[in-house]
């Protein structure tokens, strides 16, 4: 019996775990955007915060993912629900590309456009929403795209702490020394990563300034 047969026979579970996987990635990416984009905006406007914030996000990225899941286990409210914990860890990992690309995108806006906008009397928030964010949007989104692709891969580790997702198949397959079960987790994860990459890429291109 090959992988395809195995997946077909267990298609409800494949679907269920894929949805769980998507849930982990989707929610953590949403949180990372909510935190990362404002942080990126702040450090683009206040250069003295840029080193500490980027360094912090960098350090988080260097923590091995299994270790980070482990570190977070004793945290009271989080440790009691493994999916919360997984979402927090994935959010932390997704922060760096989103912060950095928001920062790069905003700093990359033509200084003449900024000067003209300021000279015309746009307020800070008008500058942000009408000039900086629209012009940085495609760069910010390419950061989101990187974050999503990383998260889809990382989320497989979440199964190690019982948070579910396609990692369940992978860990089970490892324990059973059964390639088919490993692949039943790995293939849908790869498909999800590719689909997310293409999907966000399409939006990104649409937002690219002319």
């Amino acid at each position, binding site marked *: 019996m090959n992988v395809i047969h195995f997946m077909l026979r267990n298609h409800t579970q494949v679907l269920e775990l894929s949805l769980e996987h998507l849930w982990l990635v989707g929610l953590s990416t949403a949180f990372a955007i909510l935190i990362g984009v404002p942080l990126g905006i702040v450090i683009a406007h206040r250069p003295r915060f840029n080193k500490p914030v980027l360094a912090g996000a960098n350090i988080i990225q260097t923590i091995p993912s299994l270790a980070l899941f482990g570190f977070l286990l004793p945290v009271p409210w989080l440790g009691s629900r493994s999916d919360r914990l997984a979402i927090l860890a994935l959010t932390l990992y997704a922060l760096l590309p989103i912060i950095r690309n928001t920062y790069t995108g905003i700093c990359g806006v033509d200084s*003449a*456009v*900024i*000067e003209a*906008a300021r*000279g*015309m*009397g*746009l307020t800070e928030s008008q500058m942000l929403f009408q*000039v900086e964010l629209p012009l940085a949007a495609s760069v910010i989104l390419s950061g989101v795209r990187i974050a999503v692709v990383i998260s889809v891969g990382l989320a497989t580790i979440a199964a190690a702490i019982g948070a579910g997702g396609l990692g369940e198949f992978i860990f089970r397959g490892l324990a059973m020394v059964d390639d088919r079960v490993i692949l039943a987790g790995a293939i849908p994860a790869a498909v999800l990563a590719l689909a997310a990459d293409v999907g966000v890429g399409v939006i990104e291109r649409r937002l690219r300034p002319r």
Partner: protein
Amino acid sequence: MPAASEAPVIEFRDVSYTVSGTQVIANLNLRVDRGETLVLLGRSGSGKTTTLKLINRLVSPTSGQVLVNGNPTAQGDVIQLRRGIGYVIQEVGLFPHFTVERNVAIVPKIEGWTSERIQPRVQELLKLVGLPAELASRYPHQLSGGQRQRVGFARALAADPEILLMDEPFGALDPLTRDELQREFLALQQRLNKTVVFVTHDLREALRLGSRIALMEAGKLVTVLTPHEFLKSTDRWAAAYVKAFGDGLEAAANRGTS
């Protein structure tokens, strides 16, 4: 008391500007009268652009006062100040993600004009600066350099500001387009009668466009002269300028009309 001449639209009172230990502007005293085109002439680093930016408070004086219509710019709302002053820069700085029409409409829009009022105003402005109406739906990257600067000029005029600040607006254009735009600027200025402060390092442009020329050197105002006075001036810096630019300046001072 003698009949007071009209109060200046812009006035610098003993303005200095220092940034990280370097004095960029030193004790500047200058008046700009209603309806005149005052040209700030000087070489790179002479402080002419900084002087311009002191007017719309993109730069704030370290000491002294800048007054616009008698009010110190340091007090009052900087946003309102800037919306009442048109600003044109060499790089134009059109919003690349806005069409020509939306670019021209920026200030009216943020000032809360209705679209019924904005639409005809944009059409009127495009006509005024010599652009065909069908350009309204184009994006800046689809325009030539000269067209972009015309849009920049239209944008600065959109809310009908009393004051126009122009920072080497024609500096990046080819000679033919520059000549064309200078000529149109003169014709427009005769109709609109704005109070214009115009920065350039090009003496020919200064003589042609300015009603008075303020010569700056190393952060100091050297002298303020009319174009004809400038040509005859014995001032060291003014004479150096005239010498550097050579022949044919008279024609420029006569505005190329004679």
